[in-house]
């Protein structure tokens, strides 16, 4: 098998030169999909029978929760690739995913709290899923704080990658917590292998929003990765050339 594509992706100039031209289109597409999905979910999709309009927050809450876990996996896997193959690009991806994942975790927690008040009668309960999502937020913050604490950036990335990998023991617990401890949060209703109990009128806009959030995540990740590359390579000649060409 030809592995040159793999090495090309490992080159910072190649990455920046090939990602930035279509980055704005990707962000635009993600934004458009979010607008369409929001209109679909908020205006067109029917009202939920028991909860009324408050249930519409799932169009933000569920996709954000998806991304918060997917972000952690991305961060841990990118960190592992960086440690094993010593690819700097992987470390930049890891570094750029961390704040995005933390933000998505915070969004999932906040939207859940807002929805919880009218539905459960309380903003916050120490339910298994909510508590473990809060722990996930601290895992993200720990990785970011550890990377930033190192004087040498590369050592910080390597340490952050190890912490990310060690932290993955918590991810299956978070993922399965709603099935193992049935407290207040409902168990998973979106399943790949079975028919979902959600009505298609609500399910389709939800799936659309999940797809849009994934796209947004990918776009933000690439944008932030390019930013980190340019920041740390700012004294290299290729950055100056690239910048001059762009003007």
């Amino acid at each position, binding site marked *: 098998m030809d592995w040159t594509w793999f090495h090309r992706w490992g080159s910072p100039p190649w990455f920046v030169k090939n990602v930035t031209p279509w980055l704005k289109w990707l962000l635009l597409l993600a934004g458009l999909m979010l607008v369409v999905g929001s209109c679909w979910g908020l205006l067109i999709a029917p009202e939920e029978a028991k909860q009324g309009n408050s249930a519409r927050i799932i169009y933000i809450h569920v996709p954000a929760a998806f991304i918060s876990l997917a972000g952690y996996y991305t961060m841990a896997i990118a960190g592992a690739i960086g440690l094993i193959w010593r690819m700097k690009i992987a470390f930049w991806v890891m570094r750029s995913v961390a704040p995005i994942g933390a933000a998505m975790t915070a969004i999932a927690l906040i939207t859940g709290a807002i929805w919880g008040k009218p539905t459960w009668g309380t903003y916050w309960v120490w339910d298994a899923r909510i508590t473990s999502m809060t722990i996930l937020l601290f895992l993200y913050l720990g990785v970011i704080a*550890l990377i930033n604490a190192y004087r040498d950036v590369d050592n910080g990335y*390597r340490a952050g990658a*190890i*912490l990310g990998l060690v932290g993955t*023991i918590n991810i299956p617990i978070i993922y399965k917590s709603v099935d193992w401890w049935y407290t207040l949060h409902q168990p998973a209703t979106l399943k790949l292998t079975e028919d979902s109990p959600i009505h298609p009128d609500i399910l389709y806009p939800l799936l659309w929003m999940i797809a849009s959030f994934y796209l947004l995540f990918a776009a933000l990740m690439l944008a932030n990765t390019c930013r980190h590359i340019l920041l740390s390579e700012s004294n290299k000649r290729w950055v100056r050339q690239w910048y001059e060409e762009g003007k």
Partner: protein
Amino acid sequence: MNSFLAIIGRELRIGFADLHRVVTPISFFAVVLVLMPLGLGPSPQLLAKVAPGLVWVVALLAILISADRLFGDDMKEGSLPQLMTLSLALPWVVLAKMLAWWLMAMVPLAVIAPILGMMLGLSTEAAVITFLTLLIGGLGLCLVGGISAALTLSTGAGGALVALIALPLYVPILIFGSAAVEAASLGLAVKPYVLILLAFDFLAVPLAPVAAAAALRIAIDD
């Protein structure tokens, strides 16, 4: 195997020569637990109810107090690079240090915890289970705490960062450890929780020293 035991012996000799290394975490543990009735009120029913969780949470904090000494002293006096050049592979050296830490910090803590627990109103069975779970779960705490200590070693950021990193990783041990004590005080079956804590140890004993050794190599580079 001989050098493995020699490292444990060295750690214990250093630890007991400098007794406050052993006494400080226990004193911290005791004084925080003594503060609890002052903060929460002396109601025996309330204290007995929260005692399993309190004992466990304070134990997590107490063990973290001594975490930065685990590699910090060797780093400062320069014996860490020496330990890294031994014929014994670095993960084994790290495991020996973690085991010695467990013997010096966690075992004494597990011994006094039942007494403090009973002062807070735990039943005798629950106090016995407190000892047992702190002994078993405490090994996991030392192993995971060792990774955090190694990761933060060269940053100079100290205790707050170790805590931010280690505490989220302690969640599974805390859940099953305090659940075991809770179950014992209610007269329910304890065995499943103890087995899960043991399973965590069996997972952490081979994996944690490898992660901590990798982190130490970064710290030496830094």
